[in-house]
């Protein structure tokens, strides 16, 4: 028996190769265009998704994995691992945690379900830290404790190309205050207690980057080991620019992960959105 299995869902927005290389078990959410449904990342890679999103008039919908999806993987893992740690996106944004919790009652080994209260690469960064801990020999309980700890420390700041998608997808929480403005305003949003809330409203695209870098500098001390994640929804140039500005500001991340925002999260952010997430060791 191995010590601990790490399970997550597709909204951690890490590429499929990551899960293979690092022995992480990923359960996909589903994105649907009308009657068609596709497994997030597996059957619908981000590039194809945004191409469709930009050209289709129907809005996609998403569904959480079923209890059976989780039960199947938990059962399989229960025979090989002493403990299962299942790390997921905010339960305020999706019912994924709920499906996982019900499924966890089906197996006899301990299953720790971690509601990271994050999304996208935020969850991805938690995973990356867990993988390293596991490879260094940590057991299930230690990994679970670490997951809670890191989840609570990661900060996310993101902007969206348009608020339309958040609004239509209903994932906007208090950010509602931002909706419907006639001026061309770039919203900066964050996740607080698992809910999308506005951080600042900004006029001018350049200031968005400046504000993001300022937020990063405000929230880190000096000399700590910085984990930085950057993710984009079909706008790679944005994170290139953000990375440059972070560098210019004299901030040097110890670990830098870059990724794309997958189809399920992209359904709610829309294209031309990008995010920065970080924590310090």
């Amino acid at each position, binding site marked *: 028996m191995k010590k601990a299995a790490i399970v997550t869902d597709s909204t951690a927005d890490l590429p499929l190769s990551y899960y293979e290389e690092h022995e992480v078990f990923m359960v996909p959410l589903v994105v649907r265009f009308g009657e068609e449904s596709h497994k997030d990342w597996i059957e619908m890679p981000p590039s194809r998704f945004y191409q469709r999103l930009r050209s289709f008039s129907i809005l996609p919908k998403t569904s959480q994995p*079923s209890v059976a999806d989780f039960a199947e993987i938990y059962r399989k893992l229960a025979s090989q691992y002493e403990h299962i740690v299942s790390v997921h996106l905010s339960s305020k944004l999706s019912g994924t945690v709920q499906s996982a919790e019900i499924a966890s009652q089906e197996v006899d080994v301990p299953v720790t379900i971690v509601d990271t209260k994050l999304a996208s690469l935020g969850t991805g960064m938690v995973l990356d830290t867990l993988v390293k801990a596991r490879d260094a020999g940590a057991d299930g309980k230690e990994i679970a404790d670490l997951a809670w700890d890191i989840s609570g420390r990661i900060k996310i700041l993101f902007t969206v190309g348009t608020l339309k998608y958040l609004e239509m997808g209903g994932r906007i929480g208090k950010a509602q205050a931002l909706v419907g403005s*006639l001026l061309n305003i770039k919203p900066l949003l964050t996740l607080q207690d698992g809910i999308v809330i506005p951080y600042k409203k900004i*006029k001018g695209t350049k200031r968005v980057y400046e504000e993001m870098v300022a937020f990063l500098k405000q929230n880190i001390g000096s000399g700590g080991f910085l984990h930085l994640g950057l993710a984009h929804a079909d706008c790679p140039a944005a994170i290139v620019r953000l990375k440059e500005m972070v560098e210019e500001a004299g901030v040097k991340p110890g670990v830098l992960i870059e990724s794309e925002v997958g189809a399920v999260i992209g359904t709610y952010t829309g294209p031309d959105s990008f995010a920065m997430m970080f924590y310090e060791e």
Partner: protein
Amino acid sequence: MTRTITAEDIPRLAEASLAALKMHREEIDRLNVFPVPDGDTGTNMVFTMQMVWEEISKCPTKTMEALTHAVTYGSLSGARGNSGVILSQILRGFCEVIESSGELSSSLIVEALQNSAKVAYRAISKPVEGTMLTVIKDAAAAAGNLKKNAEIDVLLELVLQEARRSLARTPDLLPVLKEAGVVDAGGYGLVVLGEGILAALRGERVAEVEISPYLQPLSVEEEVSLEYTYCTEFLLKSEGIDLKRMEKKLDPLGDSIMVVGTPELIRIHIHTNHPGKVLERATKLGSVSQIQINNMVEQAEERARTIARPKLKEEEIGLVAVASGGGIKQILSSLGVHKIVDGGQSMNPSAAELTKAIEELPSSRVMVLPNNKNVILTAHQAGKLTNKKLVVVPTKSIPEAFSALLAFDPSVSLEENAQLMEKNFSNVKTGEITRAIRSSKSKIGRIKKGNFMGFFDHELKTFGESFLEVTSRLVDMMLEEDDEVITLLVGSDVSKEEADELREIISETHHDMEIELHEGGQPLYHLIVGVE
């Protein structure tokens, strides 16, 4: 009369419950505001029951045990969305009790319902009241109080009655439902499902579920496209009219026609685009009274608006701004201003007008944006005339107001907001273009009547005969190195062509800037420019 349900009945009942859900799918979708208001509860419940139905169809032996397994498995693998997941647990709980029995009696159904509630609650780590969980719990509790030898359909009817009552109470338990003016979507779906089963047991068609007072569309994107604009209603007194003929007469004029009453006193209701014609025809037949004409398009738009923006509450900060011009007012509203008082240059509002606006807001704390140097003092004056806590944010122009409002944060105190807003608008520069109403001398030269004058932060900087030239010069004077955004608010005296030309000229000369042009619709000022 139904004494028992056997395994043979199960497929029929599952099919009926699926049919009922399908019928009400869109209504359920529209009610969906919790936990995530994405409007798919109905769709998810249909999908879940669809899988149950498919498993039942595939089931090789139609024994109670095989069928209950099919139901449990189908709902579990098909469960989609939170509502689907909870539904699967309710079904699982029910099936656990009945799986080894040959047929269902009333007492077994009671026990099964109670187990449904128990299993559903156990499955959810943090059960929230005011959802379908509450509905199944209340229904199960009501079942427990019933006579154990009741007819099954009578039992179900009474259980459903309680479920409906419980559903009607959900807005009291879950504030987000109350705010949206809806009952819980999943709970509604559960009632619909039960109605379907009861109807099938009685061999009836699935009846409409009557809880519509709570039914309100959630969608902000509600389409306001109605074939007929006016809902017209009135009473017609006459010496005797054939109701059917009256109805025929009205038919070409609209739809939703109702002609009811006696030949002497008729109530008429019609949706039409020609309320005048309707009334004219009616007055030829008798005397018309109690006329009511409502504009349904406006009503629908208003409803869409009120749903889009929740009502201001007493504990929330109210925002009052002084402005003129339709476009500017719209932008201010979109930025969160609750009340706009007409006014601006040469038409300053009185302190009493401001006080009235402040008093009309439900908030006990209010911020006022005067948007004109001459109104700031009046705004302070208004503060002395009200008992509400008032802060004047000393904005001297509309661009300053826009910036101030962007910094507004409903979650912090009045004082903190005043600071945030003042800091944000201090970076904005304002330019204004207006026309000289008479010739005059100024520090920068002799101005002829009709000349365009350009002001930068309220100081005359340039003038000339061409609107576009004066504007270009003014914008050049305003720009500094760090500036990024130019906002142009076009006045009511400027044509669309002129506005387009203006945007083009400024984009060409300042291609590194982000330029935003809006129809401000303000009088007096041909143009208001914000630079930041």
